[in-house]
């Protein structure tokens, strides 16, 4: 009982918060990219930037996972295809030729990366939300509605 009380007080003080590193170099770099959109409401702007941070966190984890499991090629393919700007995106056939893989393997690797990315995003979201209800609401806002 006493432990529960202590635990509750700890949570109230922010004890369950996920600690994120304060990376000023990155932060300054990021600020250079952020334009305070004139047409956007502050809520919309915040939601967009929040999504961006969450995706960046998820991508970092995804890369670490790939490195830990010897799937660097998977990640590079993901980077070249899904993280490329629209105008720089290559085709599956070009990737297949460049990496000496079949188109079917490219499809499979990319599908696996997308699945892992989605899983990590939802894991991160679960870490930073307090309740299941909040998690579901944020997940629907993130993945279920248009911005």
């Amino acid at each position, binding site marked *: 009982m006493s432990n529960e009380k202590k635990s509750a007080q700890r949570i109230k003080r922010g004890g369950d918060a996920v600690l994120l590193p304060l990376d000023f170099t990155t932060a300054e*770099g990021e600020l250079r990219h952020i334009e305070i959109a004139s047409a956007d409401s502050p809520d919309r702007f915040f939601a967009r930037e929040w999504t961006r941070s969450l995706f960046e966190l998820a991508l970092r984890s995804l890369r670490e996972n790939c490195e830990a499991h010897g799937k660097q090629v998977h990640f590079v393919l993901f980077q070249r295809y899904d993280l490329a700007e629209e105008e720089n995106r290559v085709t599956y056939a070009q990737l297949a030729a460049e990496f000496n893989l079949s188109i079917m393997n490219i499809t499979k690797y990319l599908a696996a990366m997308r699945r892992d990315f989605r899983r990590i995003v939802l894991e991160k979201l679960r870490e930073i939300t307090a309740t299941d209800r909040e998690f579901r609401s944020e997940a629907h806002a993130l993945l279920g509605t248009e911005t």
Partner: protein
Amino acid sequence: MDWLSDGVVRRLREISEIPDLPGDRYRLGNQIGRGGMGTVYLAHDCELDREVAMKVSTIADANADRMHREARILARIEHPGIIPIYDVAILQDGRVYYTMKLVRGARLDRHCRQLRSIPDLLRLFQRICEPVAFAHSQGIVHRDLKPENIMVGQFGEVLVLDWGVARVLAETEPDGAIIGTKEYMAPEQSTGANGQIDNRSDVYALGKVLQFLLSGQETVGRSLKSICAKATATEQDARYATALELSEDVGRYVDGLPVNAHQESIMERGARVLSHNKALAALILAYLSMRILLFLFARS
């Protein structure tokens, strides 16, 4: 990790949503719709070589369960006015998807702008009532009937969509959760009295749909107004008992017969009979004119 541009963030959102389909039966196409529970894609069924619509839940949660339930309900109510379901399955990440017939057409709120005459609108309304009446006969109440959930196909076929919140009357449901759309919701629904919800709750929503269809008309007869009023009565007992009863009363109005919702006066009856029998009215008028002329001629 480099800073992600807006374009890349958008792309990542898209790929996070794309279902990773098992096997190679379905080939995913473009997104064609989006609802509260999930996203609808165009897909190609490679096995049967046909286009289908595929609905995928957004995440693996209560909505996914609800979609599974919706699929089972759709499978139970086979009717030309209800989109047939082909297949249901769970993705590796726990999301539910089901495939159904691909129907091209327009939502009722857009389609009805093309219809001008009251009889056309009423005939369309009767076709909306048909699948709902069929579902009622199977013990299923839709609970969210509204123009956005009704579709008119390219060949005039009417389809009632979105059975995700339908209630199976044989199953008990706790009170509290308010389900439906405010503007079309029966009073018993808006208080969360789920135990009280029955066919008459859909009748209420259909009455609101009828009002919506007639909203662009300058003159609506008293009998038709009474039909709307009876369908949308606050007391459940004062409404039509089923969608079929409502449809039949609308049919009587279209055919120029007296309707159950309205006790007409002798004058109203005469006007109704004459307005639906224009040839008879013309004959009577011609006869009376002739008599008057003969009378005047005899006097002179």
